C-alpha cells in the first residue's frame, strides 16, 4: 500500500533537515503506529505525505499503491486515496460542513472519472455515517469545525474519513485533547473502517490510543528516522519505561 524509501526532508525556508532517511512499508489492511518523542519528525512525515507546502524532499521516494505521490498536488493525493486526519482541524467560517463534505467527495470522484453523488444520495450517506459517530444534524449544518469542541473536531475528521473512504489513512495525534468517551467514539469509528483494502498509519505520543486501535506494527521514530519496529508490545514498553531506554538501546 504505502512504500517509503530513504525519505529525507528539509524545511523549505531554512536549512534544517527534519527527516533523515525514513523507510516504512505498510501492507494493505495493516495498521502501523508511529510513536516517538516531540520533535522526532512524526507530524512532518504526515504533512510531507499529504503534500503540505513548506517542505522540500531532498532524497527518497513515497509510493501509494505503486504511484509516486510526492510529485502530486494535495488534491491529487486525496483522489488517489490518501487521507490525513489533522491534529488541529481547521475552522472554516461561512462554509457549511455538509457543503464542504459534498464538495470534497464529488471533487475526488470527478478526479477519478466517477459520477458525482446526487444531493439525495449524499444526504442518505452522511446521515448514516454521522449517526455512528454521534454527530447530529446541527453539527452537520454548522460551518466547518467552527465552535466545535476538541472531541467534535476529531469526530468530524473521522466522519470525513468515513465519507471519503480513503485507502490510506494517516491519523496525526488524533487522541490529543480527547477525553475517555471521545477517544472511544473516535476509535470505534476508525475500527469500523478497518478492512482488507484500507491501511492506517497512527501517529501518537501515547500508548492509550493503541488500546483501542490495535496496531499490527509499532515504529519508534527519533531524530528523523525510524529507529525501532516491533509488535504491539513495543508500545507497552514505551508506556512503562518512556522513550529514553529504547533510544539508549538503539544509539
Amino acid at each position, binding site marked *: 500500500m504505502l512504500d517509503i524509501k530513504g525519505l529525507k526532508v528539509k524545511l523549505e525556508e531554512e536549512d534544517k533537515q527534519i527527516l533523515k532517511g525514513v523507510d516504512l512499508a505498510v501492507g494493505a489492511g495493516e495498521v502501523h503506529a508511529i510513536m516517538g518523542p516531540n520533535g522526532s519528525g512524526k507530524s512532518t512525515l504526515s504533512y510531507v505525505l*499529504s*503534500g503540505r507546502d513548506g517542505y522540500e524532499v531532498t532524497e527518497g521516494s513515497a509510493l501509494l499503491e505503486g504511484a509516486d505521490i510526492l510529485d502530486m498536488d494535495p488534491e491529487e493525493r486525496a483522489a488517489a486515496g490518501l487521507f490525513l486526519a489533522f491534529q488541529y482541524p*481547521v475552522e472554516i467560517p*461561512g462554509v457549511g460542513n455538509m457543503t464542504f463534505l459534498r*464538495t*470534497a467527495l464529488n*471533487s475526488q470522484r470527478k478526479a477519478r472519472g466517477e459520477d458525482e453523488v446526487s444531493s439525495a444520495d449524499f444526504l442518505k450517506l452522511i446521515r448514516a455515517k454521522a449517526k455512528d459517530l454521534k454527530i447530529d444534524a446541527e453539527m452537520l449544518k454548522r460551518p466547518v469545525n467552527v465552535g466545535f469542541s476538541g472531541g467534535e473536531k476529531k469526530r468530524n475528521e473521522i466522519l470525513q474519513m468515513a465519507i471519503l473512504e480513503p485507502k490510506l489513512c494517516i491519523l496525526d495525534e488524533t487522541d490529543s485533547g480527547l477525553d475517555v468517551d471521545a477517544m472511544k467514539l473516535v476509535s470505534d469509528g476508525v475500527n469500523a473502517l478497518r478492512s482488507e483494502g484500507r491501511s492506517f498509519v497512527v501517529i501518537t505520543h501515547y500508548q492509550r490510543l493503541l488500546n483501542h486501535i490495535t496496531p499490527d506494527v509499532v515504529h519508534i521514530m527519533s531524530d528523523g528516522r525510524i529507529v525501532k519496529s516491533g509488535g504491539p508490545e513495543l508500545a507497552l514498553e514505551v508506556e512503562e519505561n518512556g522513550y529514553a531506554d529504547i533510544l539508549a538501546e538503539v544509539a
Partner: protein
Amino acid sequence: MALPQAKADTTEARLAGLTLPEGAGWGRAAREDALSRLTAMGLPGRRDEYWRFTDPSSLNAPEPAPAAVFEAHEAPIWDGVDRLKVIFVDGVFDAAASDPLEMTGLEIERLSDAMTRDIHWAKDLYGKLETRGQTPVERPFAALNTAFATDGLVIRATGRAERPVAIVYLHGSETSDAILHHLVKVEEGAELTLLETGPAAARFNEAMEVDVADGGTFHHVRTQGRDHERRAATHAFARLGTESVYKSFTLTVNGRLTRNEQVVEFTGDDAVAHVAGACVGDGRDLHHDDTVFVTHDALACESRQVFKKVLRNGATGVFQGKILVKQGAQKTDGYQISQSLLLDEDSQFLAKPELEIYADDVACSHGSTSGAIDRDSLFYLRSRGVPEAEATDLLTLSFLAEALAEIEDAALAEELQIRLGEWLARRR
C-alpha cells in the same frame, strides 16, 4: 468663500450639460436650493480629503464614458421572490414592464407625480436628509442628484408591507447617464423591505433618503453588477427614530468605479442600524469605494458596519467609515469592521476607519485588516480533494460570509450566496 479655479471650472463644465427638470412648486424650490448648495461647494477633486482614495473625474465629466451593455446569460436575481417589481431602463421608469404601483400597507408613486401635488409628505423629505448629510462632510454628487434627478420612486410604508419592493435597473444605452432619487418613509411601527438590482446605466447617480419613524423597520438589500464598465455614485441618507431598525446590505461585483456612501443618523433612542457590504473586484480597472458616516445623537443606539472586499488582478478597494458619537449619546454601541482579502500582490485596499466620540459611557470598536488566503485552510480543503481554484472560491465565500450574514432574510441571503459561488466559478 470662492472655489478654487479648477474646481469652479469642473463644476461649471458639468452643469453646462444639465438643466433643471421642468416643474414648479416645492420640487422646483428644492432643486434650486440643491443647485445653489452644489455651486457653493463645487464638485470634488483629488485634493479633497474625502476623495483622496477615489478619483472622481469620471463622475465629474460632462459626458459619461460609454459602457458596453452587459449580457448576463442567467436568470435575473430574485426572479423567484414574491415582490412588487419596478423597472427603470437607463434611469427611466418603465410603467408597462413594471407591476402596478399598488400594495397593501404601502403607497408608492413616481417622484415626478408626487412633485405635482402641493401637499405631499415628500415635500418634507426631498433634499432634507441630503442637506443634513452635507455636514460635516460635503457630498457634492448628492446635491447634484437632488437638483437634477429625472426620476425616482416615492414610497411610504404605513403598515407591514406584504411584499418587498424590488427595483430592477436595466441598462440599454451605452452612453446613458441616469440620475435617480428615491424617497422612503417608514411610518411608526411599519415595515418595508426594498431590493435593488441590475446595471442601471453607463453612469449612475443614485440618492435615496430614508426616514424611519419610531418603531419602524427598513431592510435594504442591493446588488450592483455584473456589468464591467459602469460608473456609479450612490448615496443613502437615513434618519432613524426611537426603536427603529435600519439594515442595509450591498453586494458589488465588477464595475469600473463604484462609490457607495451611506449616511446614517440616529435621532431617537434605542434604534439599530446595520450597514454592510461585500465586494468582489477583479482587474486593474476596478475601483470600489464604501464611504460610511454614522452619527449617534440619541441614547443607547446600536450601529454596526461590516464591509468585506475580495480583490484580485490589481483591483482597488476603499473603505472610509466613521462613527461620530455626539455629546450625550450615552450607552452607544458602535462597531465597525472593514476587511480585504487580497488574492494577489497587485491589488490594494485603502482603509480609513474613524471614531469620534464626545460621550463618556459608550462601547465603540473598530478594526481593519488585509490578508491573503489562509494557507492552513487552503491546505485543509485541498487535502480533502478540493482542487486549489475551488478551494480558493470556498474560502472567498467564507471570508464574505460575515457581511452576508447581515442580511435579515435568509432566502435572499442564500440566493446571493449561490450566485456569488457561480460568479466566482465562472472567473476561474
